[in-house]
């Protein structure tokens, strides 16, 4: 639900959400110069980051080859083992139909992470394109696009996705689309701010002054140089999208049962929290770990500043 609070630009020049205002952006004195780190270098020096990468890799592995992690079936009820607590063979316990919660969590990764991927892709491609065009073309196009972004920002993530889902209908794909649309603004704003910064850089102005074509400048100089901040946003969005999709699943707007979508798994244990807390808590812990891990990775990718 904290979909777009935490973004690199938040620490950037103070500009309200409604205002990726060029005047404010450009004029902030406190923005320090940026240094960039290689992508893999920090893993070696930071054990926390290494764990985070491992967690995300594991989640992705769940998603790609779930059968390698469990020999049980996530769908078939077993009336002989209803509401059994965690044990050596069933580490997460069983649910009301006797299904293994661990197995369901593993298979749930397929649904939740695929939906997350879809959501982030939508947000990334549409948002980046909007930001690029707005920041590079400027003028009236910028004005109109940024007002659209403002409208998207003016309704908080969860509410916006709920409204979109109520229009599109329930289901994982619709939830993913809704979460994607509601995160478009994040990418658009960051991308635009970066483009504005880059186009004012000396080397771009130099390129322009020697008569390089505008499209060439856009593709050769502006795009590659403004991507790093946007790319750093991806793992962050990945984390918040998992939370958003799970929240909607929890509310019952997402995948229909018996699909083991993560939010739905938590919701399934909601009513029996007192007598069988494992049904909610283990999938909840898995969500927490994966989101935490992707946020950690995002932080490592962010340009380091200060100190």
């Amino acid at each position: 639900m904290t979909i777009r609070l935490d973004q690199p630009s938040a620490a950037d020049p103070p500009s309200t959400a409604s205002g990726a205002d060029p005047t404010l952006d450009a004029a902030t004195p406190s923005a320090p110069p940026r240094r960039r780190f290689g992508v893999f270098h920090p893993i070696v020096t930071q054990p926390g980051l290494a764990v985070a990468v491992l967690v995300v890799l594991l989640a992705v592995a769940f998603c790609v080859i779930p059968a390698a992690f469990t020999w049980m079936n996530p769908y078939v009820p077993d009336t002989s083992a209803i509401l059994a607590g965690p044990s050596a063979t069933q580490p997460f316990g069983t649910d009301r139909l006797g299904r293994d919660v661990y197995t369901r969590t593993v298979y749930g990764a397929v649904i939740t992470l695929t939906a997350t991927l879809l959501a982030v892709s939508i947000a990334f491609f549409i948002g980046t394109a909007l930001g690029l065009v707005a920041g590079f073309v400027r003028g009236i196009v910028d004005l109109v696009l940024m007002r659209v972004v403002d409208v998207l920002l003016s309704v908080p993530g969860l509410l916006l996705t709920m409204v979109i889902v109520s229009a599109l209908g329930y289901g994982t794909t619709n939830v993913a689309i809704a979460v994607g649309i509601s995160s478009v603004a994040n990418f658009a704003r960051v991308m635009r701010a970066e483009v504005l910064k880059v186009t004012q850089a000396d080397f771009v102005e130099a390129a322009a002054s020697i008569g390089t074509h505008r499209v060439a400048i856009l593709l050769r100089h502006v795009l590659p140089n403004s991507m790093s901040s946007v790319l750093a946003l991806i793992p962050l969005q990945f984390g918040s999208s998992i939370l958003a999709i799970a929240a909607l699943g929890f509310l019952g707007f997402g995948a229909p049962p018996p699909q083991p979508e993560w939010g739905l798994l938590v919701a399934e244990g909601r009513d029996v929290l007192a007598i069988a807390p494992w049904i909610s808590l283990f999938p909840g812990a898995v969500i927490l770990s994966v989101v935490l891990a992707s946020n950690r990775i995002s932080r490592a990718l962010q340009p380091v500043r200060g100190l």
Partner: protein
Amino acid sequence: MSTDLTVTSARAGALLSSAPSRRGFLALAGATASLLLIGCGPDGEPAVGAGSGGAPVKGGTLKFAWLGAPESLDPQINSSFAGANFSNNIVDRLLFQDRDSGEFSPWLATKWEHNDDLTEYTFTLREDVTFSDGTKFNATSVKNNLDQFFHGDEALGILPNGKSYLGPYKETEVVGDYVVKVRFTAPNASFLQLSAHSGTGNISFLADKTLKSSAEDRLKPENVIGTGPFTVTEYEPKVRTVIVRRDDYKWAPAALGHEGPAYLDKIEFITIPEASVRVGALQSGDVPAAFDILPTDEKVLTAQGFELTARINPGFTLGWQFNLSLAPTNDINVRRAIVAATDRPGFKKTLLSDSEGEARSVLTDGVPGFVDYSQGALKYDLDLAKKLLDDAGWQPGADGIREKDGVKLKLKGTGNILVPDARVTYEATQAALKSIGVDVEIVFDPRNIPAEQLTAEYHLANINRGRNDVAVLNTQLNPDRGNGAVIPADFPDRARIVKTFDALDTAIGAAQAPLAKAVQDLIHEELVLVDPQFQTSQVAAAKGVHNIYLDAADRLIFLDTWVSGT
């Protein structure tokens, strides 16, 4: 009081001799759930709270937690479960229906009769009844209420809320000050039950002042004026509703065995939507009584010394209606296979709680006219299900899902999110069907699906409709009315099917029983219109609160309820 359980089984046995074992179960379920709170014996003697803490104490406030909240204070709008439960305590009915036998007894009406066609009902009213504003309840009140319920009032902004429930309503004639005649354009056998009904679509009598208030004014507590044992004083939407006792109330139905006003001074209905919080609040003593107790919590609460008041919801058993207009559920063998693959006795054994019951018919056990099909058309037999599909030419495809002539045995169904165990049983049925090559996709919250889409795309539609009368089959499944099974216009023998259903309207009481059996035979044996899953229940839990009463429609009546230690 102590005789109640035996009476239950004895009466039911007489009425429903086809299912002696079934009643045994109910009595057992009732006993395990310590169902010791019926206010009176059948002879009308006031109960002396035997087994639940001595003589009734007058006074006190009851805090009562539940899941929902009345969506409105207007009893004629309240169609939700909480709404009907709340308004059941501020209004009275013409007749009182016995929750076990289904028989009617006097309440606001002392006498009632009907013509042979069942198009005209005459009620003779009690003469000592007043609304809480002091005005008299009389024949004109009945007429004004029925007229407005049916027609609405555009000038006041009141919608025709009762139109679909009153059926072929024609008019009400004031015959005398306390005699009233209700006329219909067609036979309406179920009207008698409707005049005692307290669930969705009930008839609530309101004072003239209320009827003349605009839709908006009508929602203020001081304008909601009924004849019931309580009056509403406070209403905070979705948070709490407060009702207080009417001290001059003296027209309780004799069958309830309670004379004079209610015991409690005040009842505060508190909405706690989250199930685990509701039970937690009960366990921590924050509230002494709570409704909408989840099946999973029943055992725990009983073990902790809470008294449970539980009853099966009378009416439809919860289950699927098949869509006969859509392939492949237009194939009767597919329908039969699905019914055979539903392990109703197994649900009762492993998944359901004590208070819930095995489905034995499209009707719940207590509805007059119920016939038991558990050993016949509704028998669980997975091998038979497989064989039916094999014989009908549905062959397993490459992905394990059966197909025939290029049509996959893939079905779409709706579920129910309000009844927690519906999810569990539907998922179990879904898994069982999957194991024999039938793929079912279930949408558990169907409220956002438009009706046209339901009939055009869904093979299985959840149904659980409450009403303690066999008429519920007519409203829901009659091809000329609700047509819940979407029987197409060119269906063979359609006219005969309609006629069989319509016949329900033409008889009352014992004469109706063979007609009810004919309809159930049609539904289960001949056409296979539904796949019942189980009988849902309503459960209240309490400590130190006595005689919480669930009426024939499973709605609460607090007339006889009292709290100890006040």
